[in-house]
């Protein structure tokens, strides 16, 4: 826990702003993920789950957590037209502050499958924060991508807020 949290939280006016500041400071230490994986990249995420310590920034070992309690959505594997509405449903069930990570070539841009049945990239259906190319990417790259997300969380930048901002203007 940060030692500055007491000094930040002490000057709050009501309970709503108190909870908001508490939440923002906790997000610096730990993010709760919701991993979804369909095809080849699932084997890389599964071996990452098996070799992980519990003291890292993102802990993937508990797969029974529902999306209502998650901050980070990790998507890997090819996305077909039949499963796209279910992904949008999962994304909308997550709480307000959320970030999205696309793992692999198929989730970033459709990969080598140029048929009409495959969605050419996750950015066509939901706003994406960080891309990770590779086919499949190795475990060290996945750990390094969490550092990129940590930067975004510290500066409070997310793709969701940017799209809403541009729609309003």
């Amino acid at each position: 826990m940060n030692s500055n949290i007491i000094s930040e939280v002490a000057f709050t006016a009501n309970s709503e702003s108190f909870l908001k500041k508490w939440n923002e400071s906790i997000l610096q230490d730990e993010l709760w993920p919701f991993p979804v994986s369909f095809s080849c990249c699932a084997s890389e995420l599964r071996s990452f789950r098996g070799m992980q310590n519990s003291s890292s920034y993102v802990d993937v070992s508990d797969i029974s957590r529902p999306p209502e309690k998650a901050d980070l959505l990790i998507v890997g594997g090819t996305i077909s037209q039949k499963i796209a509405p279910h992904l949008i449903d999962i994304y909308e069930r997550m709480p307000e502050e959320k970030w999205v990570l696309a793992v692999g070539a198929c989730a970033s841009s459709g990969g080598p499958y140029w048929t009409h049945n495959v969605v050419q990239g996750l950015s066509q259906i939901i706003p994406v924060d960080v891309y990770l190319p590779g086919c499949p990417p190795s475990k060290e790259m996945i750990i390094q991508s969490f550092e990129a997300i940590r930067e975004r969380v510290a500066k409070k930048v997310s793709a969701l807020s940017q799209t809403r901002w541009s729609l309003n203007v």
Partner: protein
Amino acid sequence: MFDFQEQEDLDLINNRKLLLNELELEFGENLTLGTTENISIVVSPSSYLEKILQLKNSFGFNFFLNLWISDNIADGENFELMVQLLNMDTHQRAIITCPVTELEPVPSLSDIYHGAFWCEQESWDMYGVSFDSIPKERILSPEGMEGHTLRKNFEPKPFRLKQSVDYSFSPDPRVSRSEWKRRSVHKLDMFGGEVNGPLRAIVEVYDEVIERGRLEIGYLHRGVEKIFENLSLNQIQPHLCRINTSSPTMFQQAWFGGIEKYLGVHIPDRAKALRMVFNELDRIYEHLDTIGRIVDNLGCYPFLKETIEMQESILMVMKKYSGQRLNGSLICLGGVKSDVPKGWLTECLNLLGFLEKKVLEVTKLISNSTLWMKRLCRFELNSKQAMDWGVSGPNLRASGVNYDMRKVSPHYFYNDIEFEVPLGINGQCYDRYLVRVEEILQSLSIISQLLDNLPLGDTKTKDNRVLIPRKQDVYSETNALIQHYRFYDGGVILPEGEFYNSIESSNGELGFYVHSRGESTLNRVKLRTPGFYSGQCFTDICEGGSIEELPLVINSLNLVVGEIDR
């Protein structure tokens, strides 16, 4: 021993001659012989059902392999329906061809062979040919789409996805109507990681006990067969490893082995032995995957970590060979990618010793405990149902049927190696788990026999039709440069005709059917994957369980959705 083997071979040849004589008497000139193992028969639409019943009852073709539609005639409207059957005594495969059109419905085979149900639904989805008493519903493509994908004049149009689909069951003939009305229908979505891919199960439940159920597939349909028809032969290599990512070299062996047999290309002995080593390593990798998922579903997380560590050590050894962990293209046309690097053989032998110790450690602790047997000795599949649905591989051997393609129709050096085939007794989840554990140990002894006697020589063939010249020659000689351009600009062109090639993969029989018209791209490619038929037998097994146990049933059959949906 030697006389016994010779006597068996003579018996097999005599039986095949008898069968061919009887078939010639019956069919006359409609019968053609491709090789000694593949027969083709042409039938007219009016006598289609009758001839297939005759083949099943009097000629012994009682194992259902595949049903598909092909457009070998370059017409937009006339198609050919092909059914493939296997005779388990003489190990011969017959393809029965029948001309069909879009306008007249064809009689359905799902009463004779249950495994034809999903095949006929897929034929309507992809080509538009309808069958009697099969509902016209999409199985792989999304609902609401217009048009049929695999036709040559298909143009994609935007459509609106239909969200509300009717999931009701027809009345059960085994119980009275009032009892059937008390049941309720539930859906279970498995998109997270419980199963190897996205699947949905629809079950009918009364008082928390499942009475009937079925699976819904198509959530990972990528259109691989359409892609194969539009790429040239050298571009296809990266797509083969990504269909089933736990055993990529099996798909490469089935594809390249078939093309080499068709063209008549001989590969050197060292390449054959190295291809067999890669296949057996992939078999071990996939069986470890299945055991890890069963262990995870029953809640033992430390054992899952042990199996993942064993899989990592296999991947490290493969990375030392080719530079990539999972999707490195190790098997290519004409041999293996490159020669063995320095020190790889000793590392491989160390790996075998490490794996053998670990597997015995982990499984001895759990296989004999009464709690393990109580949770797993359920969900039975008997041998008659298995042969009807078309299930093969370890799932069939766990029900007691002794059929392994490495023993009955061996290729390369499988005849000269000693190994045993484990069999189960009851067909329950416990048998499927134990058969896979014993097959890992047998594969370890196969690999050590191969590496002890590895033949010397080249790793690529010297045949001119297939050979890519070496890079040093391309930079300096003009002959090599001309051959390089000819290979990469036009590609290898297959002569006109068709072939079928199959091997024993880690889940069952895996086959490729290819038809070519002599152009630079192929006309029709059909994959026979073992997961498609194991997924259908879920309707027989799931009775009597509860909803929380469904992922355990699906993982014990080892359903990989990349294989089912293609």
